[in-house]
């Protein structure tokens, strides 16, 4: 197993003392590769927290250039980067925080053409896409390739998160067995809501990789920050799920 450098021991000093984590957990993070599907309101914060925690490598997939309307929540984008590729801005900001991090950028969203290859490169996926087309593709490939997937989502002041351990817990198609027709691409969003569930998503990824605590597999954690209500609901696998059964 890889060793931690003196610099890494110094940077991660305050998390190395977390019970159940320690240097062994830190080494696991250093050896891990995580795919983040879109680095928008959710994915920016997931990536930033994972960079801070010492993940070894990230694959960031997000197409398009930075727009003014991104800047209320996509915290790896800046005003100075308007009109330039989002993934380049994300890489630049993440390396400012953690220059040891290896980053592969893909200036495209997840699609039928790239989903299988992207998933094959990583150990864990954090899905932060705003379209169910992309989410179902990630879910299918994660199940097929037996890679853990953390699914984070939000709307207005609401958010939810579920961790999918293929072969062990319900997948996204168990949760949504038919097409979620109600969902629309444009949605009301505060960056702080995206950021809140993104931090939970980053923590789930850290737990999966390091074997720390209990992950939200088979459980959906949903929250409404308007009244601070939180629900944790057991989600069962469907016997007839076309993806994971």
């Amino acid at each position, binding site marked *: 197993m890889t060793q931690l450098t003196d610099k890494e021991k110094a940077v991660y000093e305050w998390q190395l003392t977390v019970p159940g984590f320690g240097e062994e957990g830190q080494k696991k993070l250093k050896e891990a590769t995580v795919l983040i599907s879109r680095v928008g309101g959710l994915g920016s914060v997931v990536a930033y927290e994972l960079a801070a925690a010492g993940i070894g490598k990230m694959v960031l997939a997000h197409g398009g250039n930075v727009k003014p309307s991104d800047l209320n929540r996509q915290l790896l984008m800046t005003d100075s980067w308007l009109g330039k590729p989002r993934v380049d801005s994300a890489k630049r900001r993440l390396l400012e925080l953690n220059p040891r991090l290896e980053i592969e950028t893909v200036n495209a969203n997840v699609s039928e053409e790239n989903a299988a290859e992207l998933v094959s490169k990583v150990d864990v996926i954090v899905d932060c896409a*705003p379209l*169910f087309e992309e989410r179902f593709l990630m879910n299918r490939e994660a199940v097929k390739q037996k890679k853990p997937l953390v699914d984070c989502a939000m709307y207005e002041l609401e958010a939810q998160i579920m961790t999918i351990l293929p072969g062990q817990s319900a997948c996204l198609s168990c949760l949504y*067995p038919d097409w979620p*027709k*109600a*969902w629309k691409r444009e949605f009301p969003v505060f960056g702080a809501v995206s950021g809140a569930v993104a931090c939970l998503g980053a923590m789930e990824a850290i737990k999966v990789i390091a074997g720390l605590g209990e992950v939200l597999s088979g459980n959906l954690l949903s929250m409404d920050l308007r009244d601070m209500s939180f*629900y944790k*609901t057991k989600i*069962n696998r*469907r016997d007839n799920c076309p993806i994971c059964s």
Partner: protein
Amino acid sequence: MKIKIKYTAQLKKEAGTGEEWKDMEVSVEMEDLLKELVKGKNEKFQNILFDENNHRRQSILVIHNNEQVVSNQAMELSENDEILIMSPIAGG
């Protein structure tokens, strides 16, 4: 008996409220519950819950006292029970 119904996301938007109280029988099937909830609501609300053939959309999550209701078997209700009707979300 009085049952608290809570809505999320687009359902909450179209219902115009995040929660309401309903008078329900002791035992109710999910499909019948959802048909009851549609009464007095707009067409968009109905279209989120039911497809064009008036079949319940499977992507709508129904949570009764923190337990997912997955089939159309009868839910046994008690006074002040809470049922959460969740509309699917994918925002990032």
